[in-house]
């Protein structure tokens, strides 16, 4: 006998929003890939409803159908009935066993022992860097098949100096108008510290002091997406607390430069739907969360930023919407508008910019072949767009694109939106005396 789902009223009611029209099918990357309706949104909801109704046992086949979902939430963007697919999948996974050893291992080791702890994360990042410098991943890659290839093409973790924390406060470099909070993140801080520093530079240029919690590690997004709602709740509480304790202004906005974290944090109240103590705090917190691009594009900030941007060497840039930005938060115009502010560059569109690159949290690790296939289609579009730089706004997407470029021997590199904005700022008159801009920009 396999484990039957613990029926939870909340999940079940959410499944009832779906009337089986199927308009979601073609938006779903996994359905388009396999043609299996059990791997499309409608089919997955149907399976969840059947599980909740006790018509179906959660056996391996069924669990895999649900687990192979990217939770990219593309289906939410096209669903006329407004089905909250992300929420549904999170609670379903919370009730289901992980489908394989690797997934189970990641849940317990990665999610519980590593991500929530700054020091463990730092130590591990250093250790991985060492193996990368020794080219160990390249040595063992052939033993691990597709997963090995992904491993061999991971970006190299930067030196310790670049993995250091941001100072508690980074003061505005322009006329000060406000204060904001910012999350450094877990993977982001270790792998893409430069992105965080670039984000700060842009926010400072907009007139904001940036406050960062010093002992905070992880927002819990990966936990929620992968069936560990208890730990997600614990991390959400820590996050809320950390930002409540932050100096600065009491209701200052909290700026996120990682789309996955931002989408999740804006939905914290859902985690505490049945917790009267935490719900109001989560609500108040969620009100303050805002994506970096939305924040900068708003009000007078973009105007102010624009005056400080200097031309970059001519190049074509392609914006790739992170799923949890465009589908999770409905943000598509702002990042494009910001890119259009940068003098010297030309922005080009990729037809499937709103479709998942295959990173999808830990999906790339669990389903490397399928993940690479999704990325390959996008790499082709990138080539056809003739862009030189790929811009995105989520560490997972950035890693995925990095791996894809490296695997296919392309010279292009992915950059975070904040990085290209900061590069253009660095060309400007203000910082020119401090750091000599490299000739290539």
């Amino acid at each position: 006998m396999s484990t039957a789902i613990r029926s939870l009223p909340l999940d079940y009611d959410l499944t009832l929003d779906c009337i089986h029209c199927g308009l979601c099918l073609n938006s779903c990357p996994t359905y388009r890939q396999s043609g299996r309706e059990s791997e499309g949104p409608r089919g997955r909801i149907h399976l969840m409803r059947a599980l909740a109704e006790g018509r179906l046992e959660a056996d391996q086949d069924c669990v895999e159908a649900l687990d192979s979902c990217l939770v990219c939430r593309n289906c939410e963007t096209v669903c006329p009935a407004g089905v909250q697919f992300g929420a549904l999948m999170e609670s379903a996974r919370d009730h289901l066993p992980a489908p394989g050893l690797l997934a189970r291992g990641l849940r317990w080791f990665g999610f519980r022992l590593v991500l929530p702890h700054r020091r463990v994360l730092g130590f591990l990042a250093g250790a991985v860097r060492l193996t990368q410098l020794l080219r160990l991943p390249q040595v063992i890659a052939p033993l691990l098949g597709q997963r090995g290839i992904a491993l061999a093409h991971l970006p190299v973790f930067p030196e310790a100096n670049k993995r250091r924390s941001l100072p508690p406060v980074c003061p505005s470099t322009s006329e000060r108008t406000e204060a904001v909070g910012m999350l450094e993140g877990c993977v982001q801080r270790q792998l893409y510290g430069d992105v965080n520093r670039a984000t700060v530079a842009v926010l400072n240029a907009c007139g904001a002091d940036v406050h960062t919690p010093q002992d905070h590690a992880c927002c819990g997004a990966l936990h929620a997406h992968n069936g560990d709602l208890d730990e997600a709740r614990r991390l959400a509480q820590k996050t809320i607390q950390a930002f409540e304790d932050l100096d600065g202004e009491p209701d200052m906005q909290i700026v996120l430069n990682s789309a996955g974290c931002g989408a999740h944090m804006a939905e914290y109240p859902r985690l505490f739907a049945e917790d009267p103590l935490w719900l109001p705090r989560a609500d108040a917190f969620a009100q303050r969360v805002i994506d970096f691009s939305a924040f900068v594009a708003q009000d007078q900030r973009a105007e102010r930023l624009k005056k400080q941007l200097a031309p970059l060497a001519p190049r074509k840039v392609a914006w790739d919407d992170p799923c949890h930005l465009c589908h999770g938060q409905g943000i598509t115009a702002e990042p494009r508008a910001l890119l259009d502010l940068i003098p010297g560059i030309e922005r080009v569109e990729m037809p499937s910019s709103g479709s998942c690159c295959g990173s999808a949290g830990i999906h790339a690790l669990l389903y490397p072949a399928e993940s690479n296939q999704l990325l390959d289609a996008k790499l082709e579009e990138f080539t056809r767009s003739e862009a030189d730089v790929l811009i995105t706004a989520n560490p997972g997407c950035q890693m995925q694109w990095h791996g894809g470029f490296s695997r296919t021997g392309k010279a292009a590199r992915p950059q975070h939106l904040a990085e290209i904005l900061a590069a253009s700022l660095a060309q400007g008159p203000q910082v020119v005396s401090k750091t000599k801009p490299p000739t290539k920009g």
Partner: protein
Amino acid sequence: MTKNWIDELRTIVGPRNVITGSESLAWESDGLSLVRGMGQAIVLPLDTEETVRVMKLLAREGVPVVPRGAGTGLTGGATPVGGGVTVGTARMREIFTIDPVGRLAHVQAGVVNSDLSVAARPHGLFYAPDPSSQAACTLGGNVANNSGGPHCFMHGSTTRHVRGVKLVDAEGQVLDLLASPADPEGLDLVGLITGSEGMFGIVTEVKLNLEPLPEEVQTIIAVFPSLDAACDCVSEAIAAHIEASAIEILDKLTIAAVEDSIFAAGYPREAEALLLVEAEGGALEVQETIDLVLQLARKHGAMEIRSAQDKAERARLWAGRKGAFGAMGRVAPDLYVADVVAPRTRLREIVALAIEIAEERNLRLGNVFHAGDGNLHPNIAYDRRDEDEVRRVLEAGQLIMEACIERGGSLTGEHGVGVEKMTHMCDLFDDDDLNTMHRVRDALDPKRRMNPTKVLPLRACREVRNGGLPFSPMGNLEAKT
């Protein structure tokens, strides 16, 4: 014993593409969620060649076959109510060629309707039939059901756009009609296959006409104080030989559902009825058509008339209309989408009757329909867990259908007959008609293994043996659910 041929299927299409596990439940119904059925397996071949091998094997084993596209149909046509194997085209997604000079596209059957228009756009062309599910439904499924859509008022339904098909029949023989000229020599088999609801075989490839993108498009909405007034306006416009490309009506409940959804189109919520009209063609004729609509709308008491200012607004108005069915998910967990045709001079009468029938049974009815074609979609929101409500829904559906047939209408406009309307074929056709249809079917599928228990009412040993249903499938399924 049975295991053997399923393993053989796996060697043909690959193990991942034969589904027999618990996840098969995802294929147990199509857009008509009331009707469910489980077969022995789902098979997803990649191309014509794999389909041939699959069909030969299934012929050898004598297994019934249910063809399926994206499963967005609304009459249970792709649901394995008679058991057997579902053969899906969801992996056949290749657009082989687009010929901009000959204005033809050659595609695999699993290509999604709107994907073809997207691919044709750079050539200044589009594929005209636009069912509301066009973002998901497949062209193969469109051929099987002779699908319509709002713009079929001007462009005609699928059959007017199909130039050729490749069909794999029940025995695995390929009938290659892709080379058909515009005016077929000999028997028009392509015409026969279009709208045959999977009873003659599986269409694996299609050749379709593409139309040039119109020079000028104008879209207007007119707000009416009553559904009657909107219907009368349309009836008069038809009588005045209006040359619009689409004429649609949405009622208050539907407007509210759409406006609550992400497809909110800016439809005025206070409207009792909304008329959505589009005209396309040369600038002059478009203006003439729109002027006529404006004149008639005012005459019939339109309170407000608005014209789409740009492409984006036009797209929004249509996205709202096309999301209307799904948006009704906000009203109740299930939706029964009826599909009947009323004589266009009697729109008002039939719509009023549908409302009365629903009200008498305490049902929530939303009307959204292709008014120009007289193709009504009374949509009844319900909850399939409520047995009595299900009974009332089915009863209402039947009464509406019967009323249309009585008044000279028809039982399906574009969704096909499928399981839902099978028994009503007897209301519309006499024994001789039905026997002729059976003889055509027998000529192409003598063993009646293709999509059994659908479209043509009959009792056959095979259907009964395969767990199929006796005379009234809808009635029976009602008891099962």
